[in-house]
């Protein structure tokens, strides 16, 4: 078995819209090592959710993977038919959604929703699947599973619903779980509980996570690796500590500066000026250049693929040393 559970290679997703073709994901590549968590961060519309949906093969009808590979243990998911995909989704690959309320079927008892996967994929009998569901509910910390088994989603609190989602995602013992902002809809204390639960499950069962969020502290808490997306492309990738403490792309730097309560405390938060680029007619050169404080002439014309830096990390910035100086200047300030 390979060291990486999942490898995304040069993934392109195009969305047909009235105003033109949207290049939602444009040449994204990253790896997910077995048993580890990768945080995929970026602002709304940066293509992170589209990347997740492309991996699962549940893109909206107007979107399409136009090129690239998604390798799960070496098998390219892009080339699989829906029947083959259905054998993989669930038992090997599953997903946790942002809104646990809308991601649970309102008219089905939660126990049965958890038991459905094992029944379909593992061939469990109804009774055995129900047992499995109870065990999972216990494992994700739902109190009194026997009674809650027969409850409907609306009878659960937000945090409990997310635990149900996690139980569903775990129900067929997948190798990798894709999490689409699983804690955004929860309040902070519940968020912390859910993150701890995910991190613990990750440790105990060796399941890998891809964690999409725009919340940097969450990434720092759960993930070992980080991949930063901007305008449909990856702009920086590497070990989570290194990237967040020593960003090498002005966009990552902007994210770190605009996030409260990170490693070095700042007096005031600094927003990133401007707004995300149009993905129908993206800017030439580096996609971030219209908003970048360090912009130079070459940024406007040169394509900026990820380039490897020493230490296994990578950045798309042509002038990444400038970020280092900026961080140093930030720290020097009283």
């Amino acid at each position: 078995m390979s060291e990486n559970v999942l490898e995304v290679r040069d993934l392109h997703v195009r969305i047909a819209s009235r105003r033109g073709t949207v290049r939602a994901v444009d040449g994204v590549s990253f790896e997910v090592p077995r048993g580890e968590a990768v945080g995929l961060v970026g602002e709304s519309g940066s293509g992170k959710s589209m990347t997740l949906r492309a991996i699962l093969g549940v893109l909206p009808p107007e979107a399409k993977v136009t090129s690239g590979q998604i390798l799960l243990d070496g098998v390219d998911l892009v080339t699989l038919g829906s029947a083959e995909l259905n054998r993989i989704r669930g038992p090997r690959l599953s997903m946790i959604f942002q809104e646990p309320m809308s991601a649970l079927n309102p008219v089905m008892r939660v126990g049965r929703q958890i038991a459905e996967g094992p029944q379909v994929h593992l061939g469990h009998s109804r009774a055995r699947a129900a047992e499995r569901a109870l065990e999972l509910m216990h494992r994700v910390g739902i109190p009194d599973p026997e009674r809650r088994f027969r409850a409907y989603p609306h009878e659960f609190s937000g945090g409990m619903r997310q635990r149900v989602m996690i139980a569903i995602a775990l129900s067929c013992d997948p190798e990798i779980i894709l999490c689409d902002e699983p804690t955004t809809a929860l309040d902070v204390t519940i968020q912390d509980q859910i993150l701890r639960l995910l991190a613990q499950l990750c440790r105990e069962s060796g399941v890998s996570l891809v964690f999409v969020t725009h919340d940097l502290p969450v990434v720092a808490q759960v993930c070992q690796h980080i991949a930063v997306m901007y305008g449909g492309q990856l702009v920086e990738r590497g070990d989570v500590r290194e990237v967040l403490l020593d960003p090498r792309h002005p966009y990552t730097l902007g994210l770190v500066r605009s996030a409260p309560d990170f490693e070095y405390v700042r007096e005031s938060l600094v927003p990133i000026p401007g707004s995300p680029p149009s993905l129908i007619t993206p800017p030439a050169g580096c996609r971030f250049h219209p908003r970048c404080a360090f912009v130079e002439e070459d940024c406007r014309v040169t394509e900026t693929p990820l380039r490897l830096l020493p230490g296994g990390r990578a950045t798309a910035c042509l002038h990444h040393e400038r970020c280092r100086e900026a961080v140093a200047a930030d720290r020097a300030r009283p």
Partner: protein
Amino acid sequence: MSAVTVTDGAGPPAASPAPADRAQRRAARRWYRQPALMAGIVIIGVILGLAIAAPLLTSYSPIVQNLNATLQGPSAHHLLGTDQLGRDTWTRLLYGLRVDLRIAFIAVLFPFVLGTILGCLAGYFGGWVDVIIMRLVDIVVAFPFYVLVIALVFVLGPGERSIYIAITAIGWVSYARIIRGEILVAKRQDYVLAAQAGGLSSLRIMGRHLLPNVITQAIIYAMSDIVQDILAIVTLGYFGLGVPPPTADLGSMINDGQNFLSTHWQLTTIPGLVVVIVGLGLSLIGDGLADLLRPGQS
């Protein structure tokens, strides 16, 4: 959609304190507190009871003629008199109800099932499946329901089987439209995406996840559709395209009595009134159910 709209007079008082108000509203949502639904259930209950208990409520046969006792007025022996062949009108009414209600309740099922399945496929898959099914719907909808049903039964020949075929062939379109619309909304929900992400087949997603969420609308519609079906069955009977004589049927009773309208009006009027009452009762149930099942309308 439905023929009768009844305003609910027993809503909760407007300005009571919040907890009591909520409890009251919940109570008002209980089925037995819905006046429309309750009235409909009572009407249909009585009618069904009469139809089922027909052999106990009369000692006459609905088909055996007695040419010595034709066209009698109401009397102790013949509650509603007799028709031109000496058959007891009350007896024929009860047995006619039996036949018509049975056909109506069966006839409403086929279009319900067919329309639900086709609407589900059209809404879920979209694309050419949707185009084909909805073009078929458009073709059927272009003609009035009764005209098509009568024409079809005429072509197929009179009888129960033809009625089922005709009503199914025409009636499914409404269910297909309703379910398709509901599915189009429901399939955008995250739980459908979650089910797809869980590797469930399209069939399972439609059957176990989408249908339970949308079927209510079809059930509500079925309640008003059955009124339409009963009217169609009675109309067909009236035209001589229904169940063949001598079996009693409200439509043929109305038609047979027509010749004696000036002297024996009850032969026509009473079956006609019964049809109206049945229609009213079913409409009331339909409206009551709609109020009860449609969420967020208290």
